[in-house]
């Protein structure tokens, strides 16, 4: 009897944990947390590539805004460079003047380095120059402290692991945040047009509490 109860308990527990035997990975669970509105970017102090201290998401009284955030490290030879190229394309799209119906304001590209030891504002400025980042559209920044970096990554469910060759591997992609830092969308690198479209829609949406 106890054995049967235990077996049923395992099945019920597994059903609950995997959301009906559908979700088996951390990233799958992260998508569910996103849909439930449970992921908020921790507001951290950042240092930008121009030496300024940008204040991005987390301000409850801010105007509607959409941040397309990716996580990088400037020594990265592969994926981050690819992501940089996608950001260059998004920057070009944002710079194109559109008709009055289409809102371009309020959409910001943000690349946050998690390599706090190596990526100071000088390194970020070099990287920004390599990527032809226009500071009007694209901010490159690094958390001021290790604790800040950890808190930010953790709050968004981003896990960074050393790749054994001096670099890092991490999950994630392009994170769409609103002005309060709520995660509103997650997109793969190749889904940047979709991410940009969603950001433009989000920035154009009046805030619920001001309606």
């Amino acid at each position: 009897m106890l054995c049967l109860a235990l077996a049923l308990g395992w099945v019920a527990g597994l059903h609950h944990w995997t959301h009906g035997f559908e979700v088996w990975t951390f990233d799958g669970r992260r998508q569910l947390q996103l849909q439930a509105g449970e992921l908020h970017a921790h507001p951290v102090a950042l240092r930008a590539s121009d030496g300024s201290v940008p204040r991005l998401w987390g301000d409850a009284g801010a105007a509607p805004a959409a941040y397309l955030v990716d996580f990088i490290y400037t020594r990265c030879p592969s994926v981050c460079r690819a992501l940089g190229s996608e950001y260059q394309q998004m920057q070009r799209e944002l710079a194109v003047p559109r008709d009055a119906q289409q809102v371009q304001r309020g959409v910001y590209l943000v690349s946050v380095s998690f390599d706090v030891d190596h990526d100071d504002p000088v390194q970020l400025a070099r990287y920004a120059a390599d990527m032809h980042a226009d500071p009007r559209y694209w901010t490159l920044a690094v958390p001021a402290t290790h604790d800040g970096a950890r808190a930010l990554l953790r709050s968004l469910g981003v896990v960074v692991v050393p790749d054994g060759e001096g670099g890092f591997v991490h999950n994630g992609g392009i994170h769409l945040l609103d002005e309060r830092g709520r995660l509103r969308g997650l997109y793969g690198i190749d889904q940047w047009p979709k991410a940009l479209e969603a950001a433009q829609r989000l920035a154009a949406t009046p805030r619920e509490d001001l309606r």
Partner: protein
Amino acid sequence: MNRRLASSRGAWRLWLALLPLALAWPALRHIVESRMSLHMLGEFPMLFIAGWSASGLCLRHVQARRWLRGQRLLDWHGWTGATLASGVALVWMLPSALDAALLVPSGAAAKLASWWLAGWLLADGWRRMDAEVLLFFIGNLAWMLATAGLLYVDAPARLCANYLLDDQRWTGIGLVSSAVALLALAASAGVRRPAAGNSHRCGGNASPRTHHATMASTSSTSSRSRQP
């Protein structure tokens, strides 16, 4: 000679039972858990063996007789232990559970406790299982190990946020190898198992001390007991 052997066996059991305490050293724990292969193929069996050894150490004392009687009442013919161990093995093969064990303190605690408890229960329970149940349990475990292993080998992307793809593939190969080894071990034990008429009776009426003394005097696979 026998006393010296028993003493040496007791010392080994004590070492194995205390081995998980090494994980309290953060640097060592980081080394073990930073690689999927070490985590799944090293730490999990170590926790299981620790529970198994602790059970062997504790339950042979006379004071543990009442505890053992209660445990055997709950673990009828070893079925509860087998169900628990199967569930534990299944859960900790899930990528999301592995990540939770690394990222959430309660996940880590659940992992430690569940593997240890599975070892504790099976140490006493497996001898009381019917041959068919034991075979089903081992076969099921081997099937789960092989299935999870093949999935890890074949997956084109990382399934765990905390581990690299190469590590994941090596772990998959290790899990499949473990399944084969488990089946080979079971087959070899089955071949060496004496005829049913020679089996010892070590049921609930036997004291824990008698029970373990009997177990120690027989091959690990030769004796079978039945709960009256």
